[in-house]
């Protein structure tokens, strides 16, 4: 699934503006950053309620496909600017993390590898 497809299916808003579309290789949802550092894979879609600077650092270091913020949770402009600068696609969605996982799953996106 391409990021643009996810945005369309989820009715998401791309906070970071124009972006170069990319393939989502796998998905993961977790709010513990160290856990995500341990499990994260390149081209992963990451769903998290955390919306601070360190989320962008983790997503950039591990080359994630996008960061998805559920439930229209507020994201500070400085965070969005940092994400745009690091070429991280940041998407805000109205649905819960649970519902968003389903959108990815229905679209054929597998889970990030376990273990």
């Amino acid at each position: 699934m391409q990021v643009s497809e996810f945005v369309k299916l989820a009715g998401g808003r791309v906070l970071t503006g124009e972006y170069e579309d990319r393939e989502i290789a796998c998905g993961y949802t977790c709010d513990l950053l160290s856990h995500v550092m341990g499990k994260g894979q390149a081209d992963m879609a990451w769903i998290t309620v955390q919306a601070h600077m360190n989320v962008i650092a983790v997503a950039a270091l591990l080359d994630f496909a996008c960061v998805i913020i559920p439930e229209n949770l507020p994201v500070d402009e400085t965070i969005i600017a940092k994400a745009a600068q690091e070429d991280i696609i940041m998407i805000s969605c109205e649905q819960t993390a649970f519902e968003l996982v389903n959108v990815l799953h229905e679209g054929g996106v597998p889970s990030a590898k376990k273990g």
Partner: protein
Amino acid sequence: MTMIKETYPVKAGDMTAAGDVSARIKRQMKQLGIPASVVRRVSVGTYEAEINLVIHSEGGRIDFSISPEKITIRVVDQGPGIPDLKKAMTEGWSTATNEVRNMGFGAGMGLPNMKRNADEFTIESTVGVGTDITMSFNI
């Protein structure tokens, strides 16, 4: 033969800047054409170390060096030192504050993540002096 040797200072307590040094090191590795799987492991190890410097230390530095065979990351701080290294290396054990935990850190996975990602990992710590970590990654 060492191709690159750099030192980056890391300030204690500055959560907004946490990750900047790791990002610079990642950029350098990419420019040098280091394989993606190695870049990833070094990035995870360096970021965890950088976060620890910001959260737990009184300030420190990250040394980054590359030779044709390996990448070495050395992390040295100015204290406070870890009283019980065995506990600190245990997954799930953390002394992080609630504020830091609310940001998604303090899961007690930092040091284990460093060890897991590095090919060689050494840690020495003296209370009142500081902590000295070396991670090396085969290219």
